[in-house]
């Protein structure tokens, strides 16, 4: 790009030419030889080459104009739901493809034209400009300091301490109003994080079929997701409730359940665990039938559902809470109470 990249400068002929410009002397071979002389581009010497460059730039600008017309034509002409096959991308939306490429080309051509113009036809002679120290000269500094002292003195701020102190007080206090105003951003947590919708007698409803679950619906090796009876998608608070109440149900041979309490809280080997990871709250959704391990797909915390859902790998800090379940008179699975501990991520008041 710039002339100093050209190794031909090493040639003896070139070196002679430089001797005249540089300040090379016997004392310091490393001395700064000064700016190398400007080297002419072909466009500077040959008007035909310059005209070729001119035509190239004009062509690029013309391409841009045509491309913009293509953009408008695509916008008007291509149905917005038309799909086309483009190798190697695959099936894509034709309108998006056409609009993006025409817009891209229209913009790129302007840029390419401008840069080519600058590189071939505008002067490429390097110019040196002086720098000046950023810091002010001493006399300016002295003047500013004197002005400041004068101003401070005239304000009498240093002398009238009462004004100063009350002003600081007022300025320090008024932002408190702003902080207070933030109070109603949300309700106080209270014990909300400790409770879910689950209570004694609520049936377990399959999330996919929206039907209450019977023990026979839960086969060994299957993973079923459940919600509390009465919680419907259209409910105002559905998202917030399901964020705490979501259940994961599996059936394990009772002999294989290692944890005594887990066995006690299960029904014929059917166990119900919170689906919300105790790490940072992702829904756990990967189940390994053979080992009864569940894995959170977000951060890979792994829990052993046959052993009280204790953490066996990953960043989670404690086991998944278990919901105590039984079967009601109609033979459906039901909760025997709320979770005994808070579901989801740990927090300061959790204890």
């Amino acid at each position, binding site marked *: 790009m710039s002339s100093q990249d050209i190794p031909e400068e090493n040639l003896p002929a070139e070196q002679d030419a430089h001797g005249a410009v540089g300040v090379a002397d016997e004392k310091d071979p490393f001395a700064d030889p000064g700016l190398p002389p400007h080297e002419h581009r072909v466009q500077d010497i040959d008007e035909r080459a310059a005209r070729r460059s001119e035509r190239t730039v004009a062509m690029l600008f013309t391409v841009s104009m045509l491309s913009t017309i293509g953009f408008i034509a695509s916008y008007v002409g291509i149905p917005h739901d038309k799909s086309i096959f483009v190798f190697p991308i695959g099936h894509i939306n034709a309108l998006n493809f056409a609009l993006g490429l025409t817009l891209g080309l229209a913009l*790129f051509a302007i840029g390419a034209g401008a840069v080519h113009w600058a590189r071939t036809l505008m002067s490429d002679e390097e110019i040196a400009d002086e720098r000046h120290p950023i810091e002010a000269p001493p006399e300016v500094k002295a003047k500013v300091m004197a002005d400041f002292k004068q101003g401070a003195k005239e304000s009498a701020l240093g002398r009238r301490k009462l004004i100063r102190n009350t002003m600081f007080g007022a300025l320090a206090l008024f932002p408190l109003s702003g902080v207070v105003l933030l109070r109603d951003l949300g309700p106080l947590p209270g014990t909300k994080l400790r409770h879910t919708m689950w209570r004694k007698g609520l049936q377990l409803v399959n999330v996919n079929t929206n039907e209450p679950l019977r023990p026979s619906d839960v086969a060994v090796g299957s993973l079923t997701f459940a919600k509390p009876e009465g919680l419907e998608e259209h409910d105002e608070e559905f998202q917030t409730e399901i964020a705490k109440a979501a259940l994961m149900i599996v059936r394990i041979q009772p002999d294989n359940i290692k944890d005594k309490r887990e066995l006690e809280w299960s029904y014929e080997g059917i166990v119900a665990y919170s689906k919300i990871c105790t790490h940072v709250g992702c*829904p756990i959704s990967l189940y390994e039938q053979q080992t009864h391990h569940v894995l959170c797909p977000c951060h*890979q915390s792994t829990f052993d559902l046959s052993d009280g859902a204790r953490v066996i790998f990953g960043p989670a800090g404690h086991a998944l809470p278990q919901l105590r379940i039984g079967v009601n008179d109609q033979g459906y699975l039901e909760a025997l109470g709320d979770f005994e501990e808070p579901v989801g991520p740990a927090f300061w008041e959790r204890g």
Partner: protein
Amino acid sequence: MSTTESSESRARGKAPAGERVADWADGRLGIYSLAKSNMRKIFPDHWSFMLGEVCLYSFIIIILTGVYLTLFFHPSMNEVEYHGSYVPLQGQLMSEAFNSTMHISFDVRGGLLIRQIHHWAALIFLAGMFVHMMRVFFTGAFRKPREVNWLFGFLLFVLGMFTGFTGYSLPDDLLSGTGVRFMEGAVLSVPIVGTYLSFFLFGGEFPGGDFVARFYSIHVLLLPGIMLGLVVGHLILVIYHKHTQFAGPGKTNNNVVGMPLLPVYMAKAGGFFFLVFGVIAAIAAIASINPIWSMGPYRPDQVSTGAQPDWYMGFSEGLIRVMPGWEINFWGHTLVLGVFIPLVIFPLVLVAIAVYPFVESWVTGDKREHHILDRPRNAPTRTAFGVAWITWYMVLLIGGGNDLWATHFHLSINAITWFVRVAFFVAPVLAFVATKRICLGLQRRDKEKVLHGRESGIIKRLPHGEFIEVHEPLSQEQLHTLTAHEQYEPAQIGPAVDENGVERKIKGTEKLRAKLSEAYYGDEAQIPKPTVEEYKEITSGHGHH
């Protein structure tokens, strides 16, 4: 005024229209004084100086496309049923935010393109800032007088991260909702006030019905407003300080060598804006990004595998994934170290690089202005620190994608997690040592080149049968360029006794500074550059080259 007079005589008392407009503006805005100092402002030329331009232009593109998106986006979490033209989601319940994003993507002509340009430009903006920041770091462009501008740039990077996060959370899709849930879990881990912060942020329990609207005003007003101010300040300082330049013939600390703003940089930089915009538009045409329709609306009890944040949030994801799940329970309280420690390290990773310029200026004690850039090899300790930091960052990025590494390369996720846990501590150290050695090697090579010339590739046989390679002496330009850098002497602790012979108390900071200085500039840390005497002795000797 002489110019007015001359043009008056030329145009019979009537200046050209452009000049009259300029005169009008000058009388009110003083544009001529501004133009005098800036119209022919000199900018030096180097490819790496374009990186900052990429950031500026992608920022402008983001604002332009973002304003367009606000015309169609509804920042509301009211649940509605989908009846748009994307068949697979027909009848599904979703928030209005998701619904309107679907509308933009499928029913507004060009809406998908603008959405994709917006998102791609955001990724490129952050990537551009990262690389630009590294360029500034490795060339020492952050030194006096540019420390404040370094901080402006750093703040832009951090704010850009959060603007990106609040932005990609707006569509309320399954992937971004998972990210917001992660954030909620992280906020909950804060001791004492965590639950309160979370309830104030979400207007109650997660997810509630407020966060999209709140994120929206943060994303389109608060953060971009601050960033716009910082960008303007950043650019004003660049112009005020004048750009740095690499050492070379004719380039000194007191001048700036390059091409003038008008016309060359006007055309080059202005053209480059269109190049960047064009390339991003083309990417948005062919590469789909954040296809929310395939992920579906957010539900807190659903998730897809392979969930990943946008790349710039990946290192925080890595922190949270590899941290062991420590929890301490005491007196009815829980200290969630497994989440809180990553939450604290997250800003520290960024601060580590942000404060570096101040550490270095303290160690060197150098109060002068620096406008000549360092080659990275000539500041081995700084370069090694930078590479160690990047290594740290990359290790965490690997940790953030540990599931993808596992599935794509058929590795054990446990092994990757353990690798990252160890590498978090070890890899930066190894990178530091290796980089420093490479830098010293390159310094030796430069010295060798200066003293013995460059290898020409020509093999000569001497009369007595010996083969030698002919070395060509360097031009004076090259000799100057390779020896122009400055080498500091390690700082000494002052004399242990004062002028009266009384033992002086040496402060701990003073000792630390001397130690660091020795590590930076001691015998082990830099190769003394060739002296004139060395050069003369070698070149004046046997003239076999």
